[in-house]
């Protein structure tokens, strides 16, 4: 890996923190919904979109987002119609998307798409990441309690006047946006980690929703920040370093829970 300039490191760190905060926050809902594997698998669906962006020379973020959101809506609709579990449907669609992505993406770009490349993060990517993270966190905050209520009892939520289908669709849109920006840092294969593991770590040390969601965000940011920093110093790919940092955070949280028993 080529060394990062100071400017590129700042861009990467800012992008990483933004992605970590938003992925952690949105992921806290996914973990409660017991859809952690869906979050992981869903991220792989971005690959064909990335490939199209690279092939036709437009920002791969938009291709990734378009594929993620379209797939999320298809999965959501198929789930409603067929009553199959999300895991089953995602399992089928994600392998198909991965297969198509690998077939059409130029071989030279495959590694970057799968594992991310922080050396290519520029000012534009950073601004996009910060803006999208702020939007994703703000909108999710508005619907957070409503989604949680629908998890506790869909009937209770509906009888309170909550349109469960609409807020779920908005949530999927926001997850797709967050995953699409996360791909730049950790790649399609590893971005699911940022959605799942910070929330899983937070769940070990939280007794209320506020603490749980805030800690999920903070753990996501810590994982990304330290992963990018280590990657820069050790000149190793950022994706795996973010994952390793996140696992350390997870183990610390598990240890705290263990010690408190």
């Amino acid at each position, binding site marked *: 890996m080529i060394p990062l300039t100071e400017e590129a490191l700042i861009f990467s760190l800012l992008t990483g923190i933004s992605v970590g905060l938003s992925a952690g926050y949105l992921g806290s809902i996914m973990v*409660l919904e*017991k859809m952690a594997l869906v979050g992981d698998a869903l991220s792989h669906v971005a690959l064909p979109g990335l490939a199209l962006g690279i092939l036709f020379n437009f920002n791969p973020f938009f291709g990734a987002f378009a594929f993620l959101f379209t797939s999320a809506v298809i999965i959501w609709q198929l789930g409603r119609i067929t009553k199959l579990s999300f895991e089953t449907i995602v399992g089928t669609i994600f392998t198909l998307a991965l297969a198509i992505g690998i077939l059409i993406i130029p071989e030279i770009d495959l590694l970057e798409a799968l594992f991310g490349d922080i050396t290519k993060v520029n000012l534009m990517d950073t601004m996009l990441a910060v803006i999208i993270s702020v939007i994703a966190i703000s909108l999710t905050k508005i619907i957070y*309690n*409503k989604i*949680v*209520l629908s*998890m*506790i*009892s869909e*009937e*209770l939520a*509906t*009888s*309170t006047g909550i349109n469960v289908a609409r807020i779920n669709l908005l949530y999927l849109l926001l997850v797709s946006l967050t995953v699409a920006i996360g791909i730049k840092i950790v790649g399609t294969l590893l971005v699911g980690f940022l959605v799942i593991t910070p929330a899983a770590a937070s*769940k070990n040390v*939280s*007794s*209320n*929703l*506020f*603490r*749980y969601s805030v800690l999920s965000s903070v753990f996501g940011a810590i994982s990304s920040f330290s992963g990018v920093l280590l990657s820069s110093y050790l000149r190793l790919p950022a994706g795996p370093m973010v994952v390793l940092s996140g696992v350390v955070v997870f183990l610390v949280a598990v240890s705290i829970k263990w010690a408190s028993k």
Partner: protein
Amino acid sequence: MESRENYMLNVSNLSVKFQNQTVLDNISFKLKKGKTLAIVGPNGAGKTVFFRALLNLVPYSGKIEWIDKVKIGYVPQNLSVSDIPISVKEFLSIKNISNIESSLSSVGLDSKTILNKTLGVLSGGQRQRVLIAWAIMDKPNVLLFDEPTTGVDLDSEEAIYVMLNRLKKENKITILLISHDIHIVRDYSDYMLALNTCVTFFGESKNIMNPDLQKTIYGEPVCVETPT
């Protein structure tokens, strides 16, 4: 002739079908204000679907007419809270109403000790009381309870029904509850509606002690406890 204003609910020819299968067939009855109606029947009789129709959560044919300015509080049968780290305060705050503490006190819970507890660690009885507090927070004039004491021990069950009766009298609430327990139906409701897709009985709840009627409602006699 009694005026229409005396009735909280007027259901006529209510039918619900799912995928061409009739779940509720031609249900008609009227319920007076301030009364408690117990909905009884065997498993699969359509009791919960009937509630869902009353709450407008499923498509139906026929008419469901509530009194003007009806405000319904609903307590569902099942909650999935074991895996969600949500405190009682956070749960009740979802409604955005400020009277959390007075609602908890109405259901016999001390807000100081319970507000910061996680919903999933409460006992069945405490959880049901929190749910009832949720249902009465916005001062409804009708309460719908889908088996309000599922998973609750016998002592707490009795206490919950005594509390429901008190809330009903204090706030002049009309209550509709689903129950499998015939002594609860006899002691804590005024009328009962027996369902088995269609209405098999509608009348005063004290009739539930009649073995012939029990056979009609449940398909077989229901054993009752006798003093020893």
